[in-house]
C-alpha cells in the first residue's frame, strides 16, 4: 500500500510546546515514531490532543519545538483527518471521491475502489448533505486510501462510526502499519493493537 522506501521513515518531535490563545497547553513534548508504529494520544478534552495533531500536520504553528519527518520519502507525506470530514453538501459522495482522486493525480478507478473498501459503494449518488455522520466519516477515510502516504494523523477516527466502522478503521490502521506506514491518533476508549500511548494529561503545562 505504501511507497517502497517508507520502511526506514522516522517522525522526530523535539520539545514541542503549544498554546490556545494565551493559555499554554503543553510543553517539552518529545517523541519519535518509526515505520510500522502507531502512537495513541490520550487525555481529557482540552488537553491539546487535536492541537498536537494539527501541529504535526503543519496546520498550526507551535510555540516552540520542531517536527521532522526523516527518511527517503518526500517530507510532507502525510494525511490529516480532523474532526471535520471535508464533505461538500452539494456534491455527491462519488463525485467527491473522484475529486480527491483528481486532486492527488490518481486514476478514477482508485476512487471507486476506495469507496467500495469503506462500504460506500452503493452510496455513490447520494449528495453530501444526504449522508449520515458515520457515512461522512467513511467518505473522509477514502482520502487515506486514494493517495498512499506514510504518516496518518487521525483525530478521533472512530467518532460517529458504528461497531462495523470501528473494525474498518482498526483494519485500515493495521494494514497501513504492516506496509511500513505510521499512525498517530487521538483516541478515547479502546485504541489499536500494540501501539504506544502518549497521555497529554500527565504533561500538564507547567505554570
Amino acid at each position, binding site marked *: 500500500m505504501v511507497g517502497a522506501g517508507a520502511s526506514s521513515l522516522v517522525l522526530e518531535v523535539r520539545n514541542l510546546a503549544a498554546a490556545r490563545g494565551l493559555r499554554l497547553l503543553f510543553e517539552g513534548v518529545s517523541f519519535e515514531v518509526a515505520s510500522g508504529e502507531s502512537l495513541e494520544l490520550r487525555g481529557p478534552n482540552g488537553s491539546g490532543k487535536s492541537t498536537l495533531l494539527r501541529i504535526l500536520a503543519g496546520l498550526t504553528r507551535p*510555540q516552540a519545538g520542531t517536527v521532522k519527518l526523516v527518511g527517503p520519502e518526500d517530507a510532507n507525506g502525510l494525511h490529516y483527518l480532523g474532526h471535520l470530514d471535508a464533505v461538500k453538501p452539494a456534491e455527491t459522495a462519488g463525485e467527491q471521491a473522484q475529486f480527491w482522486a483528481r486532486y492527488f493525480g490518481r486514476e478514477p478507478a482508485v476512487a471507486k475502489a476506495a469507496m467500495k473498501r469503506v462500504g460506500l459503494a452503493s452510496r455513490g449518488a447520494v449528495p453530501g448533505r444526504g449522508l449520515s455522520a458515520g457515512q461522512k466519516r467513511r467518505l473522509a477515510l477514502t482520502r487515506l486510501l486514494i493517495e498512499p502516504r506514510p504518516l496518518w494523523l487521525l483525530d478521533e477516527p472512530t467518532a460517529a462510526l458504528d461497531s462495523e466502522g470501528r473494525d474498518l478503521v482498526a483494519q485500515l490502521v493495521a494494514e497501513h502499519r504492516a506496509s511500513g506506514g505510521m499512525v498517530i491518533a487521538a483516541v478515547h476508549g479502546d485504541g489499536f493493537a500494540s501501539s504506544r500511548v502518549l497521555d497529554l494529561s500527565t504533561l500538564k503545562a507547567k505554570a
Partner: protein
Amino acid sequence: MAVMSFFANPHRFMAASKWPAWIFTALGVALVAFGVWRGLLAPEDHQQDERARMMFVHVPAMWLSLFAYAFMVGASLISFVWRHAIADVAAKSAAPIGAVFTAIGLMTGSIWGYTTWGTWWEWGDARLVSVLVLFFIYLGYIAVWQAMETPQKAARAASILCLVGAVNIPIIHFSVEWFAVLHQQSTFMTTDDKATAEFKIPMYISALGYLALFGGLTLMNMRAEIMRTRAEMLLQRRQAAD
C-alpha cells in the same frame, strides 16, 4: 521568541521602556509647544501671508502619518519573519497614533485648501487624496486587530494587511496623481517651495516634536498592551489551575 514566553516575563522591555516613554512624550509636548508659539504667537515681522502659519501643524502631520505607517511596516516585517511578539505590540500600538496624525493632516489640509482654492476638499491634490486612502488602510488595520479571537492570529492577519497596504500605497499615489492630471484640476499644493527658510527651521522643530510625541505615545500604548495581555494570561492560568 515565542509569544507565550514574552508575555510571561516582559520585564526586560518594561524596564527599558519606562523612562523613555515619559521623556519622549515630555520632549514632544515641549517641541510642539515651541512650534505653536513660533507659528501662532510670534509677531508678524514681514508681509508673509498669514495662511502659511498653518504649515506648522499641517505638514508635520502629513509627514508623521507616513512615518507611522513605515514604522508599522517595519514592525510587521519583523513580526512576520522573526515572529517576535514585541513587534506585533509595537505595530498595534503605533496604528492609532498614526491614524490620529493622518486625521490631523487631512483636517488641517482641508482648511488650508479652503483658504487657498476655495473648496473644503480638493480631489485634484494627489497628496491629500492618497493620505485619505492611507487613512482608510489605518482604519482597516485597527479593525483587523479587534476582529480576531486570539492575539497571535490577530497579529498575523494585521501584519499581512499592513504589508499588502504598503505595496499598494505607491500605486494608489500614482493613480491619484494620474487622476488629477486627467481631470485638469489644480494640483499645486506648494507648501515647501513657498515656505521661506526661516519658516522651515521651526517647521522641522515642530515635526521633531510630533515625532517625539509619536515615540512617547506608542511606547505608552505598548506598555499598556503588554500589561493587559499579561494580566489576561495570569487570569486564564489561574482559572485553569482552579
